[in-house]
């Protein structure tokens, strides 16, 4: 899956979790940029991404990914491990 495609897919998940169809994710987007993105919805987002891509983030990736790009790095790494 191309990086762009991954971004598209997690944007869809984020729109669903944040219940806001306007949400646009970019590589540099952080939680501070999106009003609905709090510590609780963060966990929902992580859990839905894990289920959708059938991967599991590590504790550090969940708590330390500073922006969407970093989260995608981790995600793509796990997807590679699956193969």
């Amino acid at each position: 899956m191309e990086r762009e495609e991954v971004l598209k897919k997690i944007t869809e998940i984020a729109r669903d979790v944040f219940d806001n169809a306007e949400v646009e994710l970019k590589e540099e987007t952080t939680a501070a940029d999106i009003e609905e993105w709090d510590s609780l919805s963060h966990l929902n987002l992580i859990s839905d991404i894990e289920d959708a891509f059938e991967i599991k983030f590590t504790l550090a990736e969940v708590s330390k990914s500073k922006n969407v790009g970093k989260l995608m790095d981790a995600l793509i790494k796990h997807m590679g491990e699956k193969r």
Partner: protein
Amino acid sequence: MYSFKELRKHSKDQAEGEIKKLALLGNVSTQFLATAIRGYAFLEGLPLSVYDADYNQMEPQLLDPDSEVYCFCPDCILLWIATDKLYEEFLDLSPEVRPEFAASVMSKIMMYWDLISQHSGANILQMNFTEIDDKALGNYSCKVGSTFAYQIRKLNFMLSESMATRRNVYPLDILSVQIQLGNGKFYDAPLYYNAKMNVSMNALPFVAKAVTDVLKALAGRIKKCVVLDLDNTLWGGIIGDDGVDNIEIGELGRGHVFTDFQRWLKELKECGIILCVCSKNDESTAKEPFEQHGEMVLRLSDIALFVANWDDKAANIRLIQKTLNIGMDSMVFIDDNPFERNLVRQMIPEIEVPELPEDPALYLGFLQEQNYFETASFTGTGSDRTKLYQAEFERTKLKVSFETIEGYLESLGMIGAAKPFEESKYSRIAQLTQRSNQFNLRTVRYTEADIQSIAHDPDYVTLYYTLKDRFGDHGLVGVVIMKKKNGDELFIDTWLMSCRVLKRGMEEYIVNCLIREARKLGYKRVYGEYIQTAKNSMVKDIYKEMGFEEISENNYVMDVDKYKENKNYIKEME
């Protein structure tokens, strides 16, 4: 089971009706559980408002009479003391006091109960404890009082004993969820360290189900009655065809499965659940195993109402419900046959109809997992209402009300086929002639060799019938053998049909096809005969019902040119 995502989506929805209030208090994060419970309650139609107190606020909330939890005026307070936290506390204790750990936690919990009873009228939902074994001494931990594995098990036992003394405390068995799912699914370590959530997101729906089940029981929504099919549900095989000596029941082979299933049903009966039978059978045949088979666990005295006839099951269940005078939503209908299950589900949406697994070995585990029989009280054994209902049934003998099932039959999308005998089917056809006793007009038995020679004999006209519908393929379900009397006339030597497809238009379809076949071959008249046996009384008037003319007792004729097709909902295979 619903996913957490589905529950989250419905967590803001509210079911209609009188709203009950539930407050959550825990030493771990309860927000996600609150979300899951809200969603689950909505999907189960339980009007519920959930208050979730901040993380680790148990004592301040319970001690202060004006706390948020008490001001919320809850009907129930759920106390969730997570084992993970207890384990950390345990390890911080000095080893000498560890053997007293369970007792000290128990006295703290009893203090919580006392505080709640003092400040509120709420019922208490008390979670028991999941298990952690840190393998400090390996298996040996089990017999050393200062290990956590020993103390947590002791605590669960003490908790059960203490709850038994308190009327307003209701257990919530999260331990059984852990056992059901296994640690791999139940825990999510990163989630615990990240968010103080000691249960994985995917395990939350199971915990929410347990909570909702208890709340439903507290609201009076309980199951009171199980309605049971017989053949291939209570025993293996078909009593009408196999006979009492050949059905599978007892400790040997597959019979063991059915014996254990009956043991569990008997246990339900002893816990106050009413057992009823609803079977498509002759009543006397259906009762034979209960009266004569030495290895049946259930006896007629265990069955409150015994309904065995050839009417449709939805009508029979209505009869049972009226006689017992209980709500349809308090009944569970157990039947191995998908056709019957779907008919009942469609005609009576309120009744619970579990989608049984195909393998009878899996019935028990599946039904137990559904947790249908949650209760909020137990009066002990001896409250046997079975006899009472038996008497009531004898007195009233309500007339069965026939419902129109035509719409249902139409919706099934049934597809039938009638073909002359072919080689690959000989053994199945022979087997049917040997085994079918009930829907069998003359009960002539044939071997495979007989069938083969009949198939090749120009003096015979043969047809075998298959049926499928949107729920599955029933395979070869009917056999007709017609013998040539002369150039104009045929005699129906054999007509048999599997009882699994009874009363859904297959009888009509079979006759339509055989008359068409006779017409195609240039015959003018078709003769039929009914020969009575001990088991085939269900078909004694079938020729008359299908429009044949009676010429003498049990002998009938149909004029092929005057035949009017019998109505049914079975379409011809393309």
